[in-house]
């Protein structure tokens, strides 16, 4: 199979010709929207007076909750998310009305003139306050195994701790955007920057009070998503659809950066408490872990995010007796949502915190304690079963780990760094190696299905539709490769179409690292259906058996007579002439999945992605400033469909994770207003944060997989994000070198200030 060597839209990207949602040819009379934002985190709306605003130049409408013909809700799981609140403001900056005007400047000016009277209510502004007030969304969730009480009681050593983990803004470069138009037949046509066109379609239908068949949602491409457009594109799509519905004119919205950061949810901050029992070798016997996710004002996707944290808190470690309890704090902040890793990163940071605490308590090298606690296949008693009852399918991690240790020269560098640290009082270096084991599939079983629609036209050209969306991750590039390989034709013959709900219905979000696995199999199935229809036609021409027909290099021939071949387009034409359909759907559901959310048990993941990282940092003891000197990543992508795409996901995920754990810090004021709502105050990594010495390798499996993923590849969107935990642990290792502490508390994110505070604590210990 010839592997893609460029992103399918690369030329469009570099020339600026690639079109995003807000860059289409504007239809006649296109209107723009701008929100009226509440100046309180929690308040009762007493009155909304739109009179002055409505009379301002260019204003066509001012939309409030009263204008919604259908259901005032875009909550994906719980119906608790009004498009605009009718009575209660739930977070600072929430849109209580949307002004619709001829242009955006007019809408923005009029938004300031909408008078809203509020009665301020006491806000709940962080996890701690919510815990103290017992303010939670939904009942607690639990995942457990064994007997944690006796496990802890019988362990030779016990310790406990707690950790607050900060959130993260998605900072996709393209902010939320949607265009809506009611066409001449009364169908609502949406072009949205959404990871989940089907849900955007359904939400808009609900809000407008019309059936889903009257709404079509398209997604051309996104300028980044990362989970931030899985559900959170929906309220903006609903607002513009409502504007188009009410005014009869096309309407658009594209949020300015500060608005986007204020209005949309982020990666969930987590507060964790843990108690762990272990022996002299650092082998963990039992753990009790309490996780509280800051859900924000509404439920959104918080339950599955929390659950993924709860089933990744073990990371790569077997814990015989364990109880994980999870709750979702209800706060007056933007509603936190999906973000690459979907709770997995927070769970794994807690898991690594525990292992580090155990190692330092015992004075053992942390990497050894990590290794000792690994899940391993083929041991008696079994230590390859997770706490939710699923075995670690095809567990390659111990081998991968050993390879990375050797490849990164870990032991020699450890010795060098220890020597460096002995001779430098104000500068210390740190080294860490950390593993990643990440379950692939949506926890919610029903989302693990996908569809595709492939048309072959009589000239032999192919149109490819599938349910996944392109947000930069290279899904379309991979799908083109899958279709080309399956049909034995060149990629240039195939045109990939914008994702659209009238082509492939009832799709799942492009999320959970599953876009390629699910849609790839659906594309393959559709292509195979077409080949099965064409094969008898070709067989008749070639004088052979349909089972012997091969499709390769745009030619069609019999297996043992490759010298006598037909052009692909000729077989297409003959198939058409024989009155056989050249259009086919493909469908796929992941086999073998089960999950009982009440019991917290089952087999939720088809397989696991594995990886490991080694990071080396240097930390200044006087300022807390750290520098990542070198990173070595080894990651398992199975048999890669497109190596350049997979490397891009690994490198990009790692750097995004690095930002989350170091420089990206969200801060709010005491009224709940987000202070870090622009790149001047919210610092994602720049090229300067990426080490010059950055080594990335793809892991080669030692044995064939027991699963059947598309062309034996593996999902790669999220898992590499968590490789960045090695950077956090390397910083901790450097901080530890400033003193002789048996506990090294390090805040997340580890900003220079946080590192400095950690050093002060270690020095004082």
């Amino acid at each position, binding site marked *: 199979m010839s592997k893609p060597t460029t992103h399918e839209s690369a030329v469009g990207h570099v020339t600026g010709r690639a079109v995003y949602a807000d860059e289409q040819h504007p239809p006649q009379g296109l209107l723009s929207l701008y929100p009226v934002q509440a100046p309180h985190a929690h308040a009762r709306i007493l009155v909304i007076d739109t009179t002055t605003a409505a009379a301002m130049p260019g204003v066509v409408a001012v939309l409030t909750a009263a204008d919604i013909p259908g259901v005032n809700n875009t909550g994906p799981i719980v119906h608790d998310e009004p498009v605009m609140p009718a009575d209660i403001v739930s977070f600072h900056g929430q849109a209580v009305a949307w002004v619709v005007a001829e242009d955006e400047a007019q809408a923005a000016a009029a938004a300031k003139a909408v008078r809203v009277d509020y009665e301020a209510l006491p806000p709940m502004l962080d996890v701690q306050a919510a815990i103290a007030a017992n303010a939670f969304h939904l009942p607690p969730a639990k995942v457990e195994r064994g007997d944690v009480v006796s496990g802890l009681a019988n362990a030779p050593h016990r310790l406990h701790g707690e950790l607050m983990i900060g959130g993260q803004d998605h900072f996709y470069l393209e902010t939320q955007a949607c265009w809506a138009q009611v066409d001449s037949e009364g169908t609502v046509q949406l072009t949205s920057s959404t990871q989940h066109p089907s849900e955007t379609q359904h939400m808009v239908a609900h809000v407008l009070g019309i059936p889903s068949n009257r709404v079509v949602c398209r997604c051309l491409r996104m300028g980044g998503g990362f989970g931030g457009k899985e559900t959170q594109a929906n309220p903006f799509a609903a607002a513009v659809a409502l504007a188009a519905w009410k005014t009869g004119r096309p309407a658009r919205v594209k949020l300015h950066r500060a608005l986007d950061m204020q209005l949309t949810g982020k990666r969930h901050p987590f507060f964790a408490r843990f108690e762990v029992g272990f022996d002299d070798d650092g082998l963990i016997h039992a753990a009790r872990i309490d996780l509280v996710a800051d859900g924000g004002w509404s439920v959104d996707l918080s339950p599955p995010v929390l659950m993924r944290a709860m089933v990744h808190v073990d990371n790569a470690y077997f814990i015989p007796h364990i109880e994980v309890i999870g709750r979702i704090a209800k706060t007056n902040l933007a509603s936190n949502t999906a973000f690459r890793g979907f709770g997995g990163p927070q769970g794994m940071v807690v898991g690594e915190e525990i292992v580090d605490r155990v190692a330092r308590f015992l004075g053992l090298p942390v990497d050894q304690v990590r290794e000792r606690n690994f899940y391993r296949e083929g041991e008696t008693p079994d230590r390859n079963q997770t706490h939710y009852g699923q075995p670690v399918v095809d567990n390659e991690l111990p081998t991968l780990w050993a390879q990375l240790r050797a490849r990164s020269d870990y032991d020699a560098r450890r010795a060098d760094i220890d020597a460096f640290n002995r001779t430098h009082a104000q500068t210390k270096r740190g080294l860490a190696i950390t593993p990643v084991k990440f379950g692939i599939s949506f926890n919610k079983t029903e989302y693990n299905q996908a569809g595709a629609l492939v048309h072959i036209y009589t000239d032999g050209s192919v149109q490819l539709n599938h349910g996944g969306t392109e947000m930069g991750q290279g899904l379309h590039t991979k799908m083109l490769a899958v279709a080309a390989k399956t049909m034995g034709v060149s990629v240039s013959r195939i045109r990939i179409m914008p994702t659209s709900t009238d082509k492939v219905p009832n799709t799942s979000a492009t999320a959970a690292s599953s876009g390629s696995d699910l849609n790839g199999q659906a594309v393959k199935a559709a292509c195979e259906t077409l080949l099965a229809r064409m094969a008898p036609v070709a067989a008749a021409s070639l004088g052979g058996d349909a089972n012997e027909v091969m499709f390769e290099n745009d030619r069609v021939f019999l297996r043992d007579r490759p010298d006598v071949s037909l052009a692909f387009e000729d077989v297409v034409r003959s198939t058409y002439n024989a009155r056989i359909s050249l259009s086919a759907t493909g469908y796929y559901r992941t086999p073998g999945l089960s999950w009982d959310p009440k019991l917290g048990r089952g087999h939720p993941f088809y397989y696991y992605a594995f990886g490991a990282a080694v990071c080396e940092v240097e930390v200044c003891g006087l300022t807390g400033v750290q520098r990542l000197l070198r990173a070595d990543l080894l990651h398992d992508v199975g048999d890669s469909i497109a190596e350049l795409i997979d490397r891009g996901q690994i490198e990009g995920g790692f750097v995004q994770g690095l930002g989350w754990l170091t420089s990206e810090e969200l801060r709010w004021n005491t009224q709940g207003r987000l202070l870090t709502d622009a790149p001047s105050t919210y610092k994602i990594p720049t090229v*300067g944060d990426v080490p010059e010495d950055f080594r990335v390798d793809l892991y080669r499996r030692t044995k064939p997989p027991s699963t059947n993923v598309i062309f034996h590849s593996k999902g790669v969107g999220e898992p590499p994000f968590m490789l960045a935990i090695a950077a956090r642990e390397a910083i901790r290792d450097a901080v530890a070198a400033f003193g002789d502490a048996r506990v090294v508390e390090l805040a997340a994110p580890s900003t220079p200030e946080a590192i400095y505070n950690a050093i002060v604590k270690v020095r004082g210990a």
Partner: protein
Amino acid sequence: MNTNTSFLLNGHAVDLAGADPTQSLLRWLKSRQQHGTKEGCGDGDCGACTVAMIETDAAGRSHYRAVNSCLLPMGALPGREIVTVEGLAEGERLHPAQQMMIDGAGSQCGYCTPGFVMSLFVGTHDGDLSDHCIEGNLCRCTGYRPIRDAAKRLAALPIIEDRFGATLQQPRTALSSARVGDFHNPTTVAEALALKQQHHDAIWIAGATDLGVNLSRGQTVAPSFIALDRIAELQRIEIGDDAARIGAGVSLSRIEHELAGQFPLLDDMLPWFAAKQIKNRATFGGSLGSASPIGDLAPILLALGGDVHLAGPNGLRDLPIDGYFLDYRKTQRHPDELIVAVTLPKPHDLVTASYKIAKRQTDDISIVAASYAIRLDGERRVQHVRLAYGGIAVIPKRAVSTEALLLGQVLGDALVERARAALVEEFTPLSDHRADAGYRRALAGNLFVKFVAEKLA
């Protein structure tokens, strides 16, 4: 003054008649359906809107400069030449900056890509394809490795003789005075001062890296503007034996290059001051004029004991930097006065260094900035000392108590520790979203310790 104004966009003349002078070039491009240039933030912090602007120096040599089009008001454009991403390719033939980005998988979602391409394009002309070339461009997808590699491969290519190079060779005259609505572009200080007398409520605007943010956010800034970025008198750097006089309109990029090696305080600070797109437009005068307590240049001037030169309706005034800052964003400058230059005394036998600590070390606003100048005699007795800070008070400030404590004393470990403790107590900084007060105070002391350890050991 010329009111019949136009600028060149990708080689084509565009009439500015009727344009809103406060609208950014970025928004204007979008209104013309030129969507290649992207808006990632509208604040000059992400680089997605990077375009190339031609700038001609005093010697008549022209250069491409990467600038953020979101911060460039249309009013500043008369007579200027702009290249956007749409102008690079000729039909299907891509510019090498574009081809290298494709070959190395430098784009994923593609939204930041045009900005990177434009930074790399400029890099191919000005010869800097290091990380500094792309530090002002944020990418959320790739992790930068493939873009850094694209820059390296571009740097390894032979120099290209193309139409863009030829454009730079064309002779150019200095930009003439121009006006777009209430946006005035004078070419002499006298003209600028006269305009200010006619329009008392006008605001001076230099590189627009600060006011441009307000304009981009749709805030009302002032009824009219007097732009200072085409006044030749403000563009001079005069280097004497004992001092450098830097015109208020000189960009930080020029200061960084033309004074390289002469002022360690500048050499330490300017690489971290801001990204290239900002430094290409931001000026020394603008930095002092906005009088931000976290401006990174004021501490340098304070540490060296420089002067600020003002011109006003009543003539010229030369003010020492000590005492220049009065209160939060208040200085001795009268509103109708203009900063024309600063004088930076050469350090000679002083040991000097600047430090900048921020949440992110590249392209960020300081938590604390420090500039130090000290001279010890043969017995390590402190003969002269100035310790200046940004980010620790409402104005950029010297640590005068600690300076007094140090003066005349022998600089040993005990004295350094006393100075550190004194510095921690000398200021009462604020806690904000960048950092807490306690960290700022600790840095005030520790940066001095770092200075002594690194420069005076």
